[in-house]
């Protein structure tokens, strides 16, 4: 298991290779990469800054991965989330899940992202032509997490 909060970028291929290295029991790796967009709520976004709660962030991410491990039989999980100032097109978050079969890998990957969105203490501030603004939480994210109950 790998959980990292970092300002540097990451490489999906390198993370998947690290997961596979020396193993022959993995049948499926499902991954998700979230990217910074140049448009949100009708405004252009020139850049965004991600703030987090050091200490709690790592703890909250580890709890999500533990929860996923208790629901599905997983062989490995990596979660990387960036903080600091990001430009449109930059990767923000990576979740990769290895399992014997695709069903569990797909489900656990989506579960971890849905809960990360509502439970991990990160906040985005966008730079728009109208000035800086904090991104408001979406009720659709709460609904996405709720359906796993």
């Amino acid at each position, binding site marked *: 298991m790998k959980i990292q909060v970092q300002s540097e970028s990451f490489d999906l291929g390198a993370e998947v290779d690290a997961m596979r290295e020396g193993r022959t029991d993995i049948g499926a790796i499902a991954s998700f990469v979230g990217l910074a967009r140049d448009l949100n709520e009708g405004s252009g976004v020139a850049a965004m800054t*991600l703030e987090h709660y050091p200490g*709690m962030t790592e*703890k909250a991410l580890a709890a999500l991965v533990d929860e996923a491990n208790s629901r599905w039989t997983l062989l490995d999980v990596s979660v990387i989330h960036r903080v600091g100032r990001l430009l449109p097109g930059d990767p923000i978050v990576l979740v990769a899940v290895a399992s014997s079969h695709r069903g569990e890998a797909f489900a656990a990957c989506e579960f971890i992202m849905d809960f990360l969105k509502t439970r991990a203490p*990160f906040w985005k501030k966008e730079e728009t032509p109208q000035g800086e603004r904090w991104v*408001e*939480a979406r009720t659709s994210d709460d609904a996405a997490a709720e359906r796993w109950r």
Partner: protein
Amino acid sequence: MKLHLLYFARLRERFGRAEETLEFDASTAADLIAYLQSRGGVWAEELDGSRAFRVAVNQDIVTLDAVLPDQAEVAIFPPVTGG
């Protein structure tokens, strides 16, 4: 009892501080929020329930009826928007 308070994101900016230490006899998170609201101004605006906020005690998100242990780290922040 002594509490170490942390504020993040919009609340950190509006309150003009990232942290503070309080000597205060709060038994629950609700008591603490009521006290902070009584400061008026931005404190009342942000914490009177008209805007959503979250409370974490010792780095776990809790509901307002949670009991605060002495020396607790209590963080108050807007709903999260990562990912």
